[in-house]
């Protein structure tokens, strides 16, 4: 037997999916060991061996593919544990990274934080000012050399950084994406003088207009690169040492997996791979289910993360923000709000609000008995009877309903003068609507019709709430995937190879009408060809079959002077003025759809700031035929029904309780009902029903539908 393993090391749990040749997927979950994530991998593998009755240490030899999602880069960034890094930049622009275009005090912050002026702070710099060296050189917007590179000055700068003990150097010169010669020459000199220093060069990493974002990306890559490279080498060494001959691939943020070597070179590309895994798994599932448009919702302990799949493709942002810094690497778009199981409910000035403050997992909700005393969404679920305190996480984690009740009574019910159950129902209703509001913003707010979508719900708390936030939005159906509890690991094992490249070569036309002629189709074609060639080369190098490489091209297009462009798909082949006209018409249609026809003003002219390529190298893996939840199978007796409080309109309603493992394809469960899965509880509302599909997914629809 040959196995395909997917592992996602999260903050709390390490999730694993074990897929065999026959298409049987086994789902496993084990606590993450934060001191040594590698041990978490080993624990998951040991669990799998037990599940399969294999001898200890024998599984790896049978693993032909190992996909890993890891937060190693993110953790190193948050904890500022990267290496001592130096930056070399153009004379006069030493402070670019520190100034952050004035965004340092607000980037990545919520509005409620931004309005508290007294608490504004700049982030801890990833490179201190004394490790940023200027060199004499200057290139202009055309790529013309204004000041030749002073190589003596470069050597002085490199020497100074080396004397300061840097282990990594980032090279970012102004306009290097237009003319990389100076930057590449600086890189040569660094390699010459310090062959062992980790080197990151902006014209290689992110040849895109905008020196701050390019500096932030390149400096962060240098800062994290050595750390990530070491981790990858040690992991690979350890897996090989224990007999694995199969392929190791790492989940990146942009929409697939990459080689561990590549990961060491572009550490910034795995920064947000955690939430990406779930969206990629959803994209695979969407293909299998034939649902082209999906909102992926992951409700965990502290946040509610939403991704979007349009026509089977995850929506990708060309850049991302991590920890207050900007990274010019595409990331599968995931939008988060502070609404999770741990979100705290409070009454201030007579008004009940939920979140964004979270009790997290420590101290956690009051019912966790870990010292939390403030009421959370999970406490409300327990009081309402949606979560059975004795069967939480398959009965492995008993909850204290009394504590939940007391917390809600003290902090919500009494201040509002309502009953505890009405207070709990209120907390849940507010949380569900906050999530529905985010879904509304992502669909209606961007010109989409929610009725064209289905919602996938996963994450620990998603199953208990999706019946409401999905219904509120008016989507076709809400699907809780059978892999819901380990969705990111599922993404790690199922995802294809992936490369995303971007190039800034700004062009514009003051006239919309003449744009097809004015915009240089030949130059655009050449740029696409260059990017495509790079992408293909990388994919084949990473193990993709040349005939299984699929390339999507995008032109970033906007009306002149706008700040935000739209990614417009570009057809294959050489572009001509005719196809430029089609491209612009596509842009116009997309613009109208996104912002409404009243937003169009052709008199503005048009511009194409950059072009992008996303390429996928398909990997051959078995089709999933069935899903088995391993490990902590639900033990013990479950009552056949329990009372659930449905709010003042319905009161307490006797609600049937169904054991998830006893359900089979084609079964239908009428709401109100609770389906207890080992890792999650799925709640079906009044007037809803759930159908189990051929892959054991739970599909919730309105009974009238």
């Amino acid at each position, binding site marked *: 037997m040959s196995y395909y393993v997917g592992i996602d090391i999260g903050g709390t749990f390490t999730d694993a999916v074990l897929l065999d040749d026959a298409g049987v997927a086994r789902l496993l979950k084990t606590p993450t060991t934060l001191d040594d994530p590698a041990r978490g991998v080993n624990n998951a593998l040991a669990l799998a061996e037990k599940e399969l009755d294999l001898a200890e240490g024998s599984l790896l030899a049978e693993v032909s593919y190992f996909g890993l999602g890891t937060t190693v880069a993110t953790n190193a960034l948050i904890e500022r544990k990267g290496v001592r890094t130096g930056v070399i930049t153009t004379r006069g622009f030493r402070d670019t990274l520190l100034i952050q275009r004035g965004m340092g005090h607000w980037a990545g912050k919520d509005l409620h934080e931004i309005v508290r002026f007294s608490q504004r702070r700049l982030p801890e710099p990833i490179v201190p000012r004394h490790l940023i060296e200027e060199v004499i050189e200057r290139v202009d917007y055309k790529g013309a050399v*204004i000041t030749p590179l002073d190589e003596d000055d470069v050597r002085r700068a490199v020497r100074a950084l080396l004397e300061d003990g840097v282990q990594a150097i980032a090279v970012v010169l102004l306009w290097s994406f237009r003319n990389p010669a100076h930057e590449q020459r600086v890189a040569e000199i660094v390699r010459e003088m310090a062959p062992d220093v980790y080197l990151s060069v902006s014209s290689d990493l992110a040849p895109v207009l905008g020196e701050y974002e390019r500096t932030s990306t390149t400096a962060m890559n240098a800062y994290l690169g050595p750390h990530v490279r070491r981790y990858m080498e040690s992991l690979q060494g350890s897996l090989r040492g224990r007999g694995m001959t199969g392929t190791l691939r790492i989940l990146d943020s942009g929409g697939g997996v990459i080689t561990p070597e590549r990961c060491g070179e572009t550490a910034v590309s795995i920064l947000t791979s955690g939430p990406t895994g779930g969206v990629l798994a959803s994209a695979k599932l969407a293909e299998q289910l034939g649902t082209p448009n999906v909102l992926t919702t992951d409700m965990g302990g502290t946040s509610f993360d939403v991704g979007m799949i349009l026509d089977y493709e995850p929506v990708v942002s060309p850049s991302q923000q991590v920890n207050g810094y900007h990274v010019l690497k595409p990331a599968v778009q995931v939008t988060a709000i502070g609404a999770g199981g741990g979100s705290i409910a409070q009454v201030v000035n007579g008004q009940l609000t939920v979140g964004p403050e979270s009790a997290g997992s420590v101290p956690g909700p009051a019912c966790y008995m870990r010292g939390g005393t403030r009421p959370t969404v999970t406490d409300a679920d327990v009081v309402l009877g949606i979560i059975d305190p004795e069967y939480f996480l398959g009965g492995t984690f008993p909850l204290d309903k009394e504590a939940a009740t007391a917390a809600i009574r003290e902090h919500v019910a009494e201040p509002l003068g309502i009953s505890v159950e009405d207070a709990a129902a209120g907390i849940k209703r507010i949380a569900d609507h906050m999530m529905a509001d985010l879904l509304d913003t992502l669909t*209606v707010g961007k010109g989409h019709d929610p009725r064209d979508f289905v919602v996938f719900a996963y994450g620990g708390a998603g199953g208990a709430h999706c019946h409401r936030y999905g219904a509120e939005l008016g989507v076709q159906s809400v699907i809780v995937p059978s892999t819901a509890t380990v969705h990111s690991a599922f993404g790690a094992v199922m995802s294809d190879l992936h490369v995303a490249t971007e190039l800034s070569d700004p062009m514009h036309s003051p006239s919309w009408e003449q744009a097809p002629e004015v915009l240089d189709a030949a130059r655009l074609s050449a740029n696409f060809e260059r990017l495509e060639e790079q992408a293909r080369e990388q994919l084949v190098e990473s193990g993709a079959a040349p005939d299984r490489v699929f390339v999507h091209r995008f032109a970033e297009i906007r009306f002149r002077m706008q700040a935000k462009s739209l990614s417009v798909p570009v057809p294959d082949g050489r572009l001509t003025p005719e196809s430029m006209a089609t491209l612009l018409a596509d842009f116009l249609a997309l613009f109208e759809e996104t912002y409404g026809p009243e937003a169009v003003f052709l008199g503005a002219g048009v511009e194409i700031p950059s072009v992008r390529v996303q390429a996928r190298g398909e990997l051959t893996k078995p089709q999933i035929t069935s899903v088995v939840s391993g490990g902590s199978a639900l033990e013990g007796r479950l009552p056949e029904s329990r009372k659930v409080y449905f709010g003042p309109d319905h009161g307490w309603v006797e609600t049937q309780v169904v054991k998830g493992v006893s359900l089979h394809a084609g079964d239908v469960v009428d709401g109100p009902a609770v389906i207890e899965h080992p890792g999650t509880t799925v709640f079906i509302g009044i007037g809803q029903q759930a159908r189990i599909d051929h892959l054991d997914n739970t599909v919730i629809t309105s009974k009238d539908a």
Partner: protein
Amino acid sequence: MTDLTLAPETTAEIAYREVDPITYEVVRHRLLAVVAQQSAVLKNVSGSPLVTEANDCNTGIYLPDGQIAAMGPHIVFHSGSMELVVGHIIRGFEDDQGINEGDVFITNDPYSGALHLPDVTMVEPVVHEGVRVGWVGSCCHVLDIGGMTASSWCPEATEAFQEGLILPPTKLVDGGRTRSDVWRLILSASRLPANLGLDLKAMIAANTHARRGVLRLIDRYGVDVVASVMRTMLDKSEEATRQRIADLPDGVFRSRNYFDSDGRKPGLHRIEVELTKRGDRLTFDYSRSSEQVDGIYNCTESGLNGGVFASVLPVLAPDIPWNSGVMRAIEVTAPEGLVVNARRPAPCGAATVGGSYMVKNTAHAAVSTLAGVGASTRAEAMAESCGAIQVMHLGGLNQYGEGFGGAVTEALAGGGGATPDADGVDHVGPHEILSYQVTNVEGDESTFPLLWLRREVNADSGGAGRHHGGASLSAAFTVHDAHFVHSVLMTHSLSMPSSIGLHGGLPGSTHRAAVGRGTDVQEALATGRGPRALGDLNGEVTDYDANPGEVMLFPGDVVDWSFHGGGGWGDALDADPAGIAADVAAGRITADGARDTYGVVLVDGVPDEAATETVRAERRDVRRSWPRAIQDEYAPAADPGQVIGDRLTLLADADGRSWFGCVCGRVLCPAGADWHDHAGHAVLGARDLGKQVRLHPELVADAYACPGCGGLLDLEIRWSADQPIQGIALDS
């Protein structure tokens, strides 16, 4: 003040009622989500860097009478304008052309509620089954709306008619149909119709989006519920604000600021506020401010209100939803005809950086002083941020041979004010803009025919204090690939500090605007001299000390400028030496600055504690010898009391009488008196205030120190003809 009382029938058809707290929160959250979506559409469609980068715009949902129910996170000045705009529309149209479903109104008239002509505002009613439930609106600072000077910042203007197209409230869309005649009229007034057109479309699209969002919410919950929630949002904010104010001690708090140009000619003008706090109410009285001026720095009533609200909201209501409910607890007064409440047709094209801005500075200083007296609000008190702004608009033919116009956004990067607990934030931007961004140099160089020599953190720009103000930026650029660039540089206060410190904190740096003419910059670049600043070049330099106005730039010319640093908090001699050493390493403060201003002596970057203490003790000794107006002596207090400044305290004796004192134990005087008379006094020079502070010849800096410990208690910058003001006067 304008009477906004409405005919009662406008809201009679809505049955307002109490909504349960759960439904209230659900509806409220969605309304905020709708405003956020509205903002996203506005910023994504706009074609003006002032909107997309500088965030000089606004969005919101309003009650039927124009009171703000929710506003977007942009320029807070508009908190003072939207209600007036809607009021003017209602009074202008209700009985005339009517206000109907599908109408869109546009205005930029500062005498009809807008802040200044470039702030084009568009609002539309939200009508449900014939009933006007409220309004949605947005605003963009557009790049050009006509007038005698490109950019519509007209340094020579003496009346509003010269500043551009004045649009009183006008129907641009009538029942869903855009009036193409009005559309063309507006676009044809602008030198940059392409940008203006996008901005107008952005506002229409954003408002359409918001209107539909509100109507969908009405479909879901009913008109009465949604309307009631909107109204309750204001009531709740009002209640919370009044409670917050009531918790503070009653008294009068004063602040004053000056600026040195009317736009056309130099000369000092005063903005002075007396903030009276009684019970749950604040009154800001600006009647002691200067007469309106002949140039464009006046503001109207909307600018006056906006300046006050923008100051009060973050200090007293950082945790209270921002809407007109907060403003109900605040009264603003000033007679018409002053620079803060100009009479038509006084020009006010630069109101937002002139009258409104100075109102903002003074109201903020006064309300921060008040906040500092209350335990629950003290943490939110803050010295002034980014005390004045340079505005630079560019135009001409760009490097591609096309006509262009635009503004340089780096000029917004002033430093933040210090607080009781922290140094000010570097390059935080203007106080009234919640979040801004500076365009990349590569972005600027791809749209403007300019080449930057540097853009860096401006060392020693933050005002010194126990906590210092944030640093600003400085930069230099030259003309590149063009025969000329037309620039409009509207910049007052080049001769004086504006980011005032609090409680002995020194003011932030004075901003600087210098132009080198016919320099050898091209040669210096080509030969690898690596020029960063005018000092590295040969050429004739004009270092402006008054509003530059229109400045033509030619190849070889170099602009070298910097921006206001933030104001400091408390006595610089109380600053932690280790913190100052870290600031020197980070490039915020120079080693010279550390010694001269903070008395911190560094050896190899590390504070020499003994030497530092010696220097500081000498300086305190000098201050102890400063003369006092009144020589009374009181027995020292056992308990220093409550800190209400930084060293200044309020203490009660055994008989229950209140006294002003110093944390050192010195008792200054009874709380009913002005403690300044009992403190040591000296007049400081510009050099004493900071490395980059200039002081207009008619200004003096009064410093007040504790006669006991020599700690600096207060620093006031004053026109020599004005009497000192009493910053804190508590009711006994």
